[in-house]
């Protein structure tokens, strides 16, 4: 559904590439997350894929069309939720939706709701019911909460049945409760439509729900895979051992003899690298005062990638 090859973007008067020779593909119906810190190139990538920015080099195809040469065909098949809301707050919710429907050629233009076709009116009522805003659909959008505005944007962006829905940090600026209900809504969307979701985020827990995650840093993909694979790849497990002061030297000696890698100092932190904890403990004769394992979360592993090893 999305194919990116050697995509590179350098903004005018910049010395570094905002996106640097990136290649990946996203299959139809997939939920794909681009995870990375601010300034990693996530929004640049999404801008190129949504045809609002021309790449410096490389190519990208969305829904089978080239984003440079066939921009208007790409636009017909995508929906976009921007970082900043793209709603007109002076208009009512219904007017915002009507604009969208007319721009995407779903209905002819009519100046008022009551002069729009019946099919449209029914659709609006369904939509209002889905969002629980039957009473407010004809009120100006500025009276809506941020979370509700976001949901309306999502509903609006799905009206023309896009093949891919791009979401650029959709929960940025929302409070935790709104974030949660927005995600509940997105999950329903995923289950009910076969739309491919392309999400950028800097929240790990949002990315973890995806089928595939690409971790972006400084314009490059640092890691790409399913959340499980990424975890296995990024998260190393450690065994922590300690002994009484008198025995510490002999513990070190035994560990070296087993060919294990560990940090200097006590307690000893051994990188497991596939060794079994049980096997190691069994081989050690020195009396131990501490035995425990440590496995950093995906978040810690991600922070290490982004900030470099501590």
């Amino acid at each position, binding site marked *: 559904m999305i194919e990116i090859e050697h995509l590179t973007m350098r903004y005018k008067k910049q010395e570094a590439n905002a996106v640097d020779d990136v290649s990946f593909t996203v299959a139809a119906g997939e939920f794909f997350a681009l995870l990375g810190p601010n300034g990693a190139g996530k929004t640049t990538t999404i801008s190129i894929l949504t*045809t609002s920015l021309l790449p410096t080099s490389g190519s990208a195809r969305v829904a089978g069309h080239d984003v440079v040469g066939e921009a208007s065909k790409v636009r017909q098949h995508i929906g976009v939720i921007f970082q900043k*809301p793209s709603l*007109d707050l002076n208009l009512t919710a219904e*007017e915002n939706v009507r604009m*969208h429907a*007319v721009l*995407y050629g779903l*209905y002819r*233009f009519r100046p008022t709701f009551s002069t729009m076709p019946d099919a449209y009116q029914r659709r609006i009522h369904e939509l209002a019911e889905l969002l629980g805003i039957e009473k407010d659909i004809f009120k100006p959008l500025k009276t809506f909460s941020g979370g509700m505005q976001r949901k309306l944007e999502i509903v609006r962006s799905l009206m023309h049945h896009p093949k891919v829905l791009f979401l650029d940090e959709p929960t940025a600026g929302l409070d935790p409760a709104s974030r949660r209900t927005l995600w509940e809504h997105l999950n329903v969307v995923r289950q009910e439509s076969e739309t491919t979701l392309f999400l950028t985020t800097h929240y790990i827990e949002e990315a973890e729900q995806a089928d595939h995650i690409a971790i972006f840093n400084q314009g490059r993909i640092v890691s790409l895979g399913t959340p499980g694979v990424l975890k296995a790849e990024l998260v190393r497990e450690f065994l922590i051992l300690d002994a009484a002061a008198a025995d510490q030297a002999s513990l070190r000696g035994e560990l070296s003899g087993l060919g294990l890698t560990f940090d200097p100092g006590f307690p000893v932190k051994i990188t497991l690298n596939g060794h079994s904890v049980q096997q190691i403990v069994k081989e050690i004769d020195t009396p131990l005062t501490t035995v425990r394992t440590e496995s950093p979360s995906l978040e810690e592993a991600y922070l290490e990638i982004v900030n470099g090893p501590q």
Partner: protein
Amino acid sequence: MTIDALLAISYRDLLKFLRDPMRLVWSFVFPLLLIGVFGGIMQANLGESIGFNYLAFVFTGVFAYTLFMSASEGVISLIDDRESDFSQELLVSPVSRYTIVLGKIVGESLVALPRGLAILLMGSVLGVPTTPLLLLELFLVGTLGTLLGASFGVMLLGNFNNRRTANQVVPFIMFPQLFLAGVMTPIGVLPWYLEILSRISPMRYAVDLARGIYFGPDAQTGVTVLASPASNLIVMAAMFAGFLVVGTILFVRRERRR
């Protein structure tokens, strides 16, 4: 190009204007100040000694100026839209860029015209001598000035990357035209360097056309009116076409190249 998308884009501009009471009020306050206060003071103090009706002179000038400005600035607002607001959505929709620019021109002209209408009423109330036919004629040539202003806005739009640049540059381009186009004072005689600036100022032709219609064939050429309506129309048509073509091409190119 779809007519429905064009209508939807322009209708939004009109709705936005009508829903914003402060913008409505402000759009009438400035012309009222210029005509009522400034025009009133000058008329009372200079009176007959200048040989023409100063109130009517300012009235016609401010009328054309307001329509031109309103349309230009409205079209330039497409820049805001690029950074936030609804037009992000507009720019990723399958609607062609040319339709967007045209929709914006039509929409901002629709916004400018009620302002023009209000100024015409204001002028009649303030005692500018008019007839209904004259007001209708002024409204028609005002529409042409509006379209010129909108196309000038497209031209400027194509040259700006973001709102900040636009905010810094637009006043430097717009404000001097208030003087160079002779909105407040006759500009029949100008030093050569101002003459050049005045002649390249598109607003000059819109203002002069409105005056040509108002003062009619008896106008004092070089004082109240600079050139015949016909020659003003020709210059305006040429500028309109030039601005529109160049501006749209620049806008479409710039929009995706950053």
